[in-house]
């Protein structure tokens, strides 16, 4: 009898302890829709589908556009916290893919690029979800162009976050002076790592195996 109670308590303790460390993943993807980069959205759709295929039950995923003022829920194109049941997860993934596809077909280019606002929104979303792993994907040329009056010189707290810049294309001016491109990358890396985040750049979209 005593042994049985002890075993049951042990199982309960083990079960309780497992709840304290979530093992799920949260991914927030920012899509740059400014100017000519809008044409790159087809590539972004592929990345989103790949990411969807890698995510599993109880993971969270959101895709948001970067426009003039990105620190807003209105910019979220599609979001999902996947269910515990495999069949429901499949349904959610299909719906997600459809929503993204529709957005890619109809997305209009935005005049300004507020990457920092999008990053703040991403941090807020992922912190709210409380996932074990937090990843922010930035599909952009990383050229921030703020509209007048927008204040974005803020340190974003990125402790425990991994920020991955995808498809950082070279601008025409970068070709004239590559230091601009390298400087942009260094600046973003510095901003991310300054507040405790991890920084990675993936430009080869054929090698996405290590993305998540």
């Amino acid at each position, binding site marked *: 009898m005593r042994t049985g109670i002890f075993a049951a308590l042990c199982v309960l303790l083990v*079960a309780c302890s*497992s709840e304290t460390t979530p093992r799920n993943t949260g991914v927030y993807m920012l899509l740059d829709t400014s100017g000519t980069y809008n044409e790159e959205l087809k590539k972004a759709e592929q990345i989103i589908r790949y990411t969807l*295929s890698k995510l*599993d039950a109880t993971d969270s995923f959101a895709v948001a556009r970067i426009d003039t003022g990105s620190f807003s829920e209105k910019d979220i194109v599609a979001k999902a916290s996947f269910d515990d*049941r495999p*069949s429901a997860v*499949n349904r959610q993934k*299909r719906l997600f*893919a459809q929503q993204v596809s529709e957005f890619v077909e109809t997305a209009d280019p935005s005049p300004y690029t507020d990457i920092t606002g999008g990053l703040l929104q991403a941090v807020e979303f992922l912190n709210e979800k409380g996932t074990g792993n937090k990843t922010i994907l930035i599909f952009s040329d990383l050229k921030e162009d703020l509209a007048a009056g927008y204040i974005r010189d803020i340190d974003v707290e990125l402790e425990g976050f991994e920020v991955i810049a995808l498809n950082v294309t070279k601008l025409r001016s970068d070709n004239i002076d590559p230091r601009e491109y390298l400087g942009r990358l260094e600046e973003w890396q510095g901003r991310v790592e300054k507040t405790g985040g991890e920084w990675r750049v993936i430009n080869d979209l054929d090698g996405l195996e290590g993305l998540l």
Partner: protein
Amino acid sequence: MSFMLGITPWPVASAILWIILIVAALYLVRNTAHNTIKAAAQGLHRSFKVASKAVTRSEIKLEARNRDVLLAAGREAKERILEREFDRINETVRKDLANYSALHRSLSESIGRIEKDHQEAVDVPPDPPGWVKAVEAVAKMNAQEDRFSVGNILSDIHKSLIKAHKEAMNAYHVASARRHKLLRHMRPDWRRIQQKLTQVGKSVDSLLSRSVTIDRLMQEYEDIVHGQDRAISVLSSSSLVNFFVSAFVLCIAIGGATINFSLIARPMAEMVGGTSLIGNFRTADIAALVIILVEISMGLFLMESLRITRLFPVIGALPDKTRVRMIWITFTILFLLASVEAGLAYMREVLLHDELATSALLRGDVGATATGEYMWITTAAQMGMGFILPFALTFVAIPLETFVHSLRTVVGLIAISVLRALSLMLRLLGNVFLYLGVLLKQVYDIPLFVPLWLEERMARNADDDGLLGRVGR
């Protein structure tokens, strides 16, 4: 070191001095040192010897216990076999004795009919011929009497004779035909009697062969009861064979259970969630495992209730009515679980298709979502396996019982071997320490060879002086 070599101005002299001092000290404590070494060696030798004896005693006790276990198991097994043989004999005798009165009556009736027919078929003696008297009357007549009338009489007699002959022949034919008919009627009765007797003969032969088997089994049983070595040897080897065979069958059953597990673990995530964990294990996996274990338990109870196995004496001792109820309850639960498994196996296939379709969609490979024409075969096979495997696992109870019973003996045999090896090792160690003590004493004496040599010389001289003194006197 420098201190040791610095006690005199000359290091060599210091070293020699030290050697002399050490040798002298060693020589002075030689007897004490030898006694210490001897005591330590003998102490260790005795300790190991005592330990070895204790282990040997344990081994003997364990061997006796193992022997008792083996005999008890063998006695129980033989009793079961004998019981079954007696049941069979009882069944045969019951069937034959129940039909014995009918058989006896049938045989009596058949024999009565045969006797009656036989009586009726007896050859009837022919009637004495009537014309003999007429011939005598003619012979007594006088020759002088009318010859003409004699001729007429003889002619009449002749006619009568022919007529009588015809009638006699007809009567004879009729009687023969009747007798043949009666004999023909006897034939089926003979056949019936022959069949009945063949049947009885077979039953008697079966009983005789069974009685031979029972004689043999009784002999083996007596050997076991008397604890004869031959019986122990046979039981021991059969126990080992049972152990390995049952272990092999259990391995196969574990394979079946693993297949069963893989069939239901995936769809189980639909019921209990795909990511929740208990410890480091997925709840879905644990739930699937629990279902399989419950099925095996139900199988065990079913086999116990059917009295095929005897792992739980409580179930075997239940009243027949309760036992039959238990059979039905366990079978129903097993059937329901098998149905659930078949459903889960179907669900697994549906989920797999759904997942494949989603993956294809995400890859942008829409053509890959089309399912094959013969996919229903795998679905049906999975469902069939999901339904059949729980019932197949029911039979695990039989090898499990054999395994559990033979395990006691095998573990006992292994423990005996281990104890025997330990005892031998302890005895060896004891002897090693004893001879090590002798060796140490010799090694101790090596640096003392000079004083020992001197001592020996002095002792010899003293002996020689003593001898000369005795001779002089």
